[in-house]
């Protein structure tokens, strides 16, 4: 089904002929996605009807108004990584926001930036660092959009102990609502600037997103303010060495350690204490045991060799209850305080520094990985793809409980040969806002090109999701279509309220609801 001639021309008039396409080759590059096979059985989800590259809020608004007028659905994305970016059903437009790519402001004193959708984490970070600031980078990588993380997606990152969570970092927002009207959240709407996203009155941030964003189901975000955080390192961060052994020299104001504990319980105690002591710039399981061997290897082959080596030499036990922590401080005195506090915490919880990861070159690599948030795509490298599970945002004890369960469950699938044998424990995550809440998601790596592996991975994700209900482990992080329908009934029927929000804000249902909520309850649910 092609767009009716006049509709195409109307859209073309809005964005210009060079910024719209319905060429199959272009459309396919938007249908192809990571995890597409879990939706369609192939690497391709539904092809969008056309792809548009709007260049500013006025164009976005005009497109959405046209969509409302002609009954056309649309879905926007920024960097477009993950199946939730794909469209569902025939005739849906894909809006690729990459032409909106400016950092509009970095307010050094008030510690925030204003960005457009296609500013990626690395870009904002380097510009912020020049001004003694840093931004929250999500663990998925600094190649993702700052705005998307703040407005539309999730937002866990390993500096979260110091830089929070994306939901809590968003300030004012420019938002083209599903009906095409522009809502300016918070202080922006009152002409007061970008420093706040809440009010007048109730905060419409609550409609904009929750723990997870609306994933394209509630309009398009075209600008947002995001909090920046202090950066205690130098204004530029040179990288030394040859990849994959390239590292970032650790500034004097930082300390980098990997820690190990005698048990999950001891680890949990330590994390609570670290949070209370208000120490740490990075803290969490950035490299769960199964990923530590991946730190400085160049290929899956080398990883497998390294994993086998450390396993046979019994080193995996050393990594078992591990976390990484970077101390970062404004002054030498503060750093000394943090070091002493960490020392005490280790002594109280029976933890210790993993000596084999204390080598300077290894620490430099780790520093690069986590400050720059650039290492996680490694999880694609080993088996071809990965999926994640559990990982509710909750108290650290509950996060640990879910990890213990996840590891146990994974072993069943490892023994079956369905997923990569990473040792079982690939619980990735951390504790955020000085440990006020945390998350540990259990990652599995598998080969989607192998039918048994794909089936096993699907079953694992489903079984783990079911367990979160049975064991009250919080809502899992894995994002699939129909999630609200599945979990709503277990959680105060929130899906019913979401549906009402969808209908109220998008009466013509033009914003693709496939990863938000369908306007009508599916039959049989």
């Amino acid at each position: 089904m092609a767009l009716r001639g006049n509709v195409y021309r109307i859209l073309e008039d809005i964005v210009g002929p060079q910024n719209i396409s319905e060429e199959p080759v272009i459309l396919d590059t938007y249908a192809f996605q990571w995890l597409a096979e879990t939706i369609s059985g192939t690497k391709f989800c539904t092809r969008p009807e056309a792809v548009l590259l709007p260049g500013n809020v006025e164009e976005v608004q005009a497109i959405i108004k046209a969509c409302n007028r002609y009954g056309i659905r649309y879905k926007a994305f920024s960097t477009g990584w993950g199946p939730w970016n794909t469209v569902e059903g025939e005739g849906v437009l894909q809006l690729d926001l990459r032409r909106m790519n400016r950092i509009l402001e970095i307010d050094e004193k008030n510690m925030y930036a204003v960005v457009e959708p296609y500013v990626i984490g690395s870009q904002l970070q380097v510009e912020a660092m020049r001004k003694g600031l840093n931004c929250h980078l999500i663990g998925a990588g600094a190649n993702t959009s700052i705005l998307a993380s703040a407005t539309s997606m999730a937002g866990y990152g390993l500096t979260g102990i110091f830089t929070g969570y994306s939901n809590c970092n968003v300030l004012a927002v420019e938002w083209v609502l599903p009906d095409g009207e522009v809502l300016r959240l918070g202080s922006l709407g009152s002409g007061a600037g970008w420093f706040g996203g809440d009010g007048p009155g109730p905060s419409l941030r609550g409609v904009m997103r929750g723990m997870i964003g609306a994933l394209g189901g509630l309009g398009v975000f075209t600008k947002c303010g995001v909090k920046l955080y202090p950066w205690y390192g130098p204004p530029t961060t040179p990288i030394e060495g040859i990849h994959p052994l390239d590292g970032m020299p650790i500034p004097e104001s930082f300390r980098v350690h990997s820690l190990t504990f005698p048990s999950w319980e001891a680890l949990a105690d330590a994390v609570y204490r670290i949070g209370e002591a208000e120490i740490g710039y990075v803290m969490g399981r950035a490299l769960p045991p199964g990923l530590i061997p991946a730190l400085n290897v160049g290929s899956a082959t080398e990883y497998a060799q390294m994993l086998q080596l450390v396993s046979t030499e019994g080193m995996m036990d050393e990594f078992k209850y591990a976390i990484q922590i970077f101390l970062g401080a404004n002054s030498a005195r503060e750093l000394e305080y943090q070091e002493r506090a960490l020392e005490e915490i280790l002594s109280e919880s029976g933890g210790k520094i993993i000596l084999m990861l204390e080598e300077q070159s290894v620490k430099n690599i780790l520093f690069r990985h986590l400050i720059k948030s650039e290492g996680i795509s490694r999880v694609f490298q080993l088996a071809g793809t990965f999926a994640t599970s559990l990982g509710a945002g909750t108290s650290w004890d509950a996060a640990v409980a879910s990890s213990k369960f996840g590891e146990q469950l994974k072993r069943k699938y490892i023994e079956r040969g369905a997923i990569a044998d990473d040792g079982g424990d690939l619980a990735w995550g951390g504790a955020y806002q000085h440990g006020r809440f945390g998350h540990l998601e259990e990652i599995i790596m598998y080969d989607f090109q192998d039918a048994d592996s794909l089936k096993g991975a699907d079953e694992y994700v489903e079984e783990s999701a079911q367990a979160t209900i049975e064991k009250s482990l919080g809502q899992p992080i894995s994002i699939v279509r129909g999630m609200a329908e599945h979990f709503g009934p277990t959680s105060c029927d929130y899906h019913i309220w979401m549906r009402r929000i969808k209908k109220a804000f998008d009466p013509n249902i033009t914003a693709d609801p496939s990863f938000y909520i369908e306007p009508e309850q599916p039959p049989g649910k």
Partner: protein
Amino acid sequence: MTLQDYRNDIQRCSRCSLCKWLPLAQIKSWRFANACPSMVWGNFHAYSAGGRMIAALSLLDGRIDYTDKLVEIVYQCQMGGACDVSCKVNRDLDPLEVMLELRAKCVEDGQVLPAHMVMIESLRSDDNVLGELKAERGKWAEDLDVKDITKEKADVLYFAGCRYSFDQDLWKIARDTIALLKMAGVDVGISGKEEACCGGRAFEIGYRGEFTKYAEHSIETWNAADVRTVVTSCSDCYGAFKFHYPRIGKKMNFEVLHITEYLDRLIKEGRLKPTKKVPLQVTYHDPCHLGRLSEPYIPWEGVERKVLGQVVIKDPPKEYRRGTNGIYEPPRDVLRSIQGLELVEMERIKEYAWCCGAGGGVMEAYPEFAQWTADERIEEAKATGAEALVTACPWCERSFRDALEHNGAKIKLYDIVELLLEAL
């Protein structure tokens, strides 16, 4: 390996878009964070390496057929390989190889660009890609006192390449090069009008047959002539010798050096002594073909195997080219040897360098895109505050000259050879 052989790899692309950017830790500013000219120019995802891999898969699976747009997507790319370096930071994929195979498939299927056909016609008739007469090839050196290697032996064969041979604006650089070599006492010869194209550009635009013909010709000729050392000041040719020639499996009995490597060697051996001051602040542009694209080809044949349940490994282990073994220090060392000259670096350097715009058949087929790409590099050079942009490749030189002429940017442009000669 054919495109089909890369099918598994292609499917493993996660659409992370890392191929669009410098490796994340290498990004130094918002302005110069991009790695891929094609993506910034074309904007749709299809113009990225990942996008082209998806397009290849779509084509293989019969989801799409050839269209003008597909062909444009395939060819609107300099094949500079920055995407490849970025992708491999954490992945076992070979996007550049996939893109090369995709072009080969296009040619095989008759999906070619008129501008490229002109190049190939010229190659077929006159052994060059510039539409010039073969008879004119040696003219650049006509009045030079230099050996003709087709008539007499020399220790070093200087290979000018198509661009230096025919681009009169650049003849001075080639002539300066000979002067430098002679000053160092090098026994150097050239092939004059008997020189033929290296075939590299043909490979890049997908014409495998032509490439093989020229690669075989060069190797056989030089092996037969007992050439021991080939020195070229064309980075494109150098890249072809290093990255593409090994693919045809013919033994090369000669060493190939880029002029910057050779000059560096001559300076370090004391055969060239730059003593005159050249008070100039310069920034150096790493030509793609001298940098990441000169990293030698690493052949691999094997199978995928599973270990640790579902971890997919290559058996035998496959070594990946990451661009780190390109020629980066020799040109810089040559510049550093010049007194009074100060080298300041751009943000995107070495294996992360931004392309000049000329490669991959883009200059011929999409001149506007080529010029924009050069403009971007000139902006980056200007941002360093340097007075001059220095490069070591006639294609880069041409591209920058055209751009400077057009955009009027106030920055001087030199080949490294010119500066060294000034210092002697």
